[in-house]
């Protein structure tokens, strides 16, 4: 399963030219190393403050462009990872090991990514059990060695 792990912004992280505390950066660097060594990271990136971004609002056929910065900093995204793990619980366990991304109060949100299996399962539980029973009867199956 894939999960997007989202580090939410804070008013501090949204400040233009804000640089994270070096000690925090070192800790976060070490955490990222652990993730990579665990083989679960697919992608990761940090985002500039929203002052460098823009929004496009859709209403029927109309489009409105709004320049950043945006005020509700706690709902903004400061950075993200894409992880490959087996369950939401595994993602949560890894996030628990993450250093506090901003010092003070901050939040990390975990969201599951849609994959093909969500639309069409490859093998159902019933099919799996049926195949185990069938294979057990076949001669010279690797499974039976």
């Amino acid at each position: 399963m894939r999960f997007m792990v989202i580090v939410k912004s804070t008013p501090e992280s949204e400040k233009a030219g804000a640089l994270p505390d070096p000690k925090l950066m070192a800790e976060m660097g070490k955490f990222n190393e652990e993730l990579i060594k665990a083989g679960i990271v697919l992608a990761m990136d940090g985002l500039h403050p929203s002052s460098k971004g823009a929004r496009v609002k859709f209403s029927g056929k109309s489009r409105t462009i709004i320049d950043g910065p945006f005020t509700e900093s706690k709902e903004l995204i400061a950075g993200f990872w894409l992880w490959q793990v087996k369950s939401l619980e595994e993602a949560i366990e890894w996030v628990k090991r993450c250093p506090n991304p901003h010092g003070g109060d901050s939040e990390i949100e975990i969201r599951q990514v849609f994959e093909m299996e969500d639309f069409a399962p490859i093998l159902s539980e019933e099919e799996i059990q049926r195949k185990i029973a069938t294979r057990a009867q076949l001669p010279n199956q690797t499974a039976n060695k």
Partner: protein
Amino acid sequence: MSATDPHQAIHRTIEAVWRIESARVIAGLTRLTRDFELAEDLAQEALVAALEQWPRSGVPDQPGAWLTATAKRRAIDLFRRNAVAARKHEELARELEALERTPPDLDAALDETIGDDLLRLVFIACHPVLAPESRVALTLRVLGGLTTDEIARAFLAPEPTIAQRIVRAKRTLADKRIPFEVPRGPEFAARLSSVLEVIYLIFNEGYSATAGDDLMRPALCEDALRLGRILAELTPAEPEVHGLVALMEIQASRTRARATSTGEPVLLLDQNRAQWDQLLIHRGLAALERAHKFNATLGPYLLQAEIAACHARARTPSETDWTRIVLLYTELAQVTPSPVIELNRAVAVSMAQGPQAGLTLVEALASEPSLARYHLLPSVRADLLFKLGRHPEARTEFERAAALTRNNRERGLLLTRAASCDDEGPGRL
């Protein structure tokens, strides 16, 4: 939709913690006890203890340390209770006690050696004294953190079969006194090759249908990819490791495009490339970059990865650099000579130089005994004959290929192509 059953929820959490921590716990215990079979048993006992206690006490702050400490205590009890208390065991028991009293920050210092221990664990689990299927089961268990049941389901085998396989594998390693160490010197390359073989076996089990109606089992591909990525960080200076990872990332990128919604296989050149996972392709190409920093001669996994990369870089089949693929297959045939690789090369030649050039090479392989029952030989021949407008001969070969394949879906595909030879007159393309 949060988990409403707290019992199930804590169980899934413990499984997740096990996946994260178990390899390190087993590796550390093996170094302490110098007995891999015992260490794995102790780790399993610690897991049982966690399943009993954590639902009540909650997951500890340092779950890995808890599991290791629990296993260490069991080891001490075991050594003490051992009637034949050889001096060595007493020493070990004292060593273990001393380590148990180690303050937490010293445990952190021990973390630096954990990478070495993990690598030792990789090499012992993949030891060539074990049969391939045993190496696979043992690796998934001690390095992948899969339960016996998960391994059994992944390989569509009965759970007791897998459980026995693992027990026997551990016994064999103990009987043969296989040491817990990273091989050195000239032995390293051969042993690493054995490790890569295990990982790629796991990947292929998930990626290719073997017999019957099996299709892909993506979870196994993910397990293999994770193991490969872990290994790449443990041995960053090994180009073939990066090559294997690159190969798996790029092959996995095609998962969505390889079968129709009804489960029919789709050949590479017919796949909808918009469904290729660009993130995985990017990762595969990045892994290739890492390998190339070492300027070594290209080994078999790197060569296969380079071929996969040629396809990955082509936005449409017509943009494929077939000339480069021919060169890569020629090199691959020299590194690991095999009639199957020669056949693949013939296909590439037919794309680069036209069907007749390819057909000449394929027909040279017709008498190759190891290909006598290989369905892809008549299948390729049929395809080339079809392209040359020789439809009656093509049909014979498609039917021959269909009779040889053990995969039902593939048989269907071949018989469809055989039937289409009747529809096409020589003047129609």
